[in-house]
């Protein structure tokens, strides 16, 4: 298993993303003897081996299921335990596109953070390219290092360093020999990118145009970044923002005005019938009372009988209240979305919360001055 190429069949040791539901993806390394526990049941790792990726498996108890997904950078971003702010797919896809990252590209990324964007860069650069990633926070560096190895990101060159203080120069991870990174594109996700920008000169390509993207949440950071880019000879500086949206689709019942009119008529008819019934009942009671008095029924006996009748009526009324009469939209019924006894609109909806801002993206280019 590697993020750089795709497998068809699940093998022991593979990273599998178990789809539990919604956006809930659980990363697991397939290890015989272990199992995945969800509130829908237990799923043994052994049962996954030999199945194609994308398979659905059921829990031991036979109810509840999960899907076994192949990891991709985009799914990894969803499944990730959020150690730091993550660069989500609408931003990362635009940055990759606009910096023209392709198979063979050489990229600087700092800081590594949760390593989610590193996966997308590594996938797109491929085995012919290189991602130089820097992280100053040691626990995060160690965590990322472990993860990149486990995920087969062989084209990532990870360095534990504060680039603002110590720059971007790289050394061979085996021989410790310094070498020239010769970078095509730079991505800076740092609190103060303006401190790192002056250090870029020694690592970026000298024979071709280089792109940069600085990722900063606050507008004042952007202002300082623009100044630093100008001072260091970067051109075509442009700040942008990306608005990403996600919709799901659903059914909304069509309620016709004609049905509403029919329903009103029905209500009025039933009300009129009710008034009529009440009149009959009052008349009947009156007669019964006269009769009882005439028959010499004792007062408390009459009271008890009247009380019983009242309760009986109350019960009846409760029952009729549960009957909605003309009921074109299934009021009080459990109607499933799309039930073919009703008419439906196809509509779409963003979830209840919208990511309204991630960061400002400041792009620029550096063009080396070549003499003809």
């Amino acid at each position: 298993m590697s993020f750089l190429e795709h497998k068809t069949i699940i093998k022991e040791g593979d990273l599998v993303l178990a789809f539990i539901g919604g956006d809930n993806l659980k990363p697991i390394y397939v290890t015989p003897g272990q199992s995945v526990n969800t509130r829908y049941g237990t799923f043994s790792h052994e049962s996954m081996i030999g199945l194609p990726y994308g398979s659905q498996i059921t829990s031991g108890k036979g109810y509840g299921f999960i899907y076994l997904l192949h990891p991709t950078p985009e799914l990894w971003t969803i499944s990730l335990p959020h150690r730091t702010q993550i660069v989500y797919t609408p931003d990362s896809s635009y940055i990759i596109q606009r910096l023209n990252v392709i198979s063979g590209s050489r990229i600087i990324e700092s800081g590594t953070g949760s390593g989610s964007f590193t996966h997308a860069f590594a996938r797109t650069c491929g085995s012919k390219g290189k991602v130089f990633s820097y992280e100053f926070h040691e626990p995060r560096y160690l965590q990322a290092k472990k993860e990149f190895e486990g995920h087969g990101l062989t084209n990532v060159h990870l360095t534990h360093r504060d680039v603002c203080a110590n720059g971007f120069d790289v050394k061979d991870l085996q021989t410790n020999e310094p070498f020239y990174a010769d970078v095509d594109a730079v991505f800076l996700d740092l609190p103060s990118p303006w401190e790192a920008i002056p250090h870029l000169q020694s690592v970026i390509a000298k024979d071709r145009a280089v792109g940069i993207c600085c990722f900063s949440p606050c507008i004042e950071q952007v202002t300082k970044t623009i100044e630093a880019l100008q001072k260091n000879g970067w051109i075509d500086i442009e700040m942008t923002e990306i608005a990403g949206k996600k919709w799901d689709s659903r059914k909304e019942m069509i309620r016709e005005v004609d049905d509403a009119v029919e329903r009103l008529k029905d209500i009025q008819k039933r009300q009129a019938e009710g008034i009529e019934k009440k009149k009959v009942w009052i008349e009947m009671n009156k007669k019964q009372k006269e009769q009882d008095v005439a028959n010499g029924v004792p007062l408390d006996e009459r009271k008890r009988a009247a009380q019983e009748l009242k309760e009986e009526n109350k019960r009846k009324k409760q029952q009729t209240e549960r009957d909605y009469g003309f009921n074109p939209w299934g009021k009080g019924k459990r109607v499933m979305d799309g039930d073919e006894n009703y008419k439906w609109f196809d509509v779409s909806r963003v979830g209840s919360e919208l990511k309204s801002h991630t960061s400002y993206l400041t792009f620029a280019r550096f063009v080396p001055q070549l003499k003809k």
Partner: protein
Amino acid sequence: MTENTLFPPSNNIISENDRVMILIPSGGLRTVQMKLGGIINLGKFGQFLVDNIIGYPYGQSFEILEDKKVQPIKSLSFGLEERDSSNTEDSTKESTPVPEAFISSLTNKDLVDKGSDIQKLTVEEIEKLKTEGGGNDIAKQIIEKMIQSHGAFDKKTIFSQEKYLTRKQKKFSRRFTVLKISPYNMLSYLYQEKEPARVLDMSEETLGLLLSHADVRPGGNYLLMDETGGLIVYALMERMQGQGTITLLHENDQPKLNLLDQVGFTEEQIESIVHPVNLLQFLYPEEERAKNYKPSDEGIEGFPENKKALHFKRLRKYHLLNDTLDLVEKNNFDGFISVCTLNPTTLLPKVLPRIGGSRSIVVYSQFKEILVGLNDAMMKDKNVLMCNIYESKVRKYQTIPGRLHPLMTSRAGGGFIFWGLRVFPKEGIIAVGRGM
């Protein structure tokens, strides 16, 4: 499936015969080929000789001088942008300067807005200046003439004067930048040249989102429908750089890939990665394989050269189709990308069986309403998981420190994508646990 094919442009230096993208001050884009000895005519933005820009790196900006010569300059920016730059000595040298003799007002209080009345320079006079040959000096002359004949230039504030100048400079300056051709700027170009329908109204950011969601990478084997004349094929080819395959499903007799010629691909480069297959071949591979004509190589040695070439071309076509049908019948594509106007709700079920497990299904549409119908159908069809509709919109800023704000207008539309994952559901599962 050849490795290491170099795709155009094959290097980072402006070279002979390259197709390049020219960016002019107004923001317009043009594509031209670098024919030695050729003259590139940018209309009112001037003319230059191709030979004069060969050897510079892509991304280089130039100012046009007399006699179709050019001078490399740092960037295309003007006035306002440069004012705020820290190295003002450099940049003012390059920009058309604000004539210092003109007086400016503290506010625009006394400026009467009369639109075109105020410009005393006639349209004819400007037209005459514009058609005159020569370099950026002409632009300077035009702008100075316009200021001189502007009835109320001195009534404007310095800010308004600068704004006016920048606008005129963007309109008349004889400068340009040479950009490496790419799917990103080809899309911008196609859109700008009033052909948004040709690219189904797709924006640059939507293309980026599509490529990421489809998990496009070197070495993948993708199934693609592309109704843009080849833009999406081009985007995949650029990302893959010759590693992997693109099976191009189309609905015509021949796939339409005219854009690929335009950006300089050879037939061989295209054939090395693109496997065209029409809907009939895709849906009925066995029947179509039976019809696939294999030219006999009997007596081939005796053929004349042109007949021999034709034979080998036919043989190549035969093998290409056979290979493609092999790929189709493997039912294991690394993803499906659809950028076409066929109804996706009826198309997708026919394509799904050919897609590998846990691979991405990405369907583009200009209209969200069409994808709502698809999403709804796919939520019922248990073969696609995590279905949703996505949109990405970029918002660009006027990036001038002190005058920072989002651009007042931007292009509308840009399209939407449906993204889901191909899965293999078990039969007869009770729907517990799927958090839909």
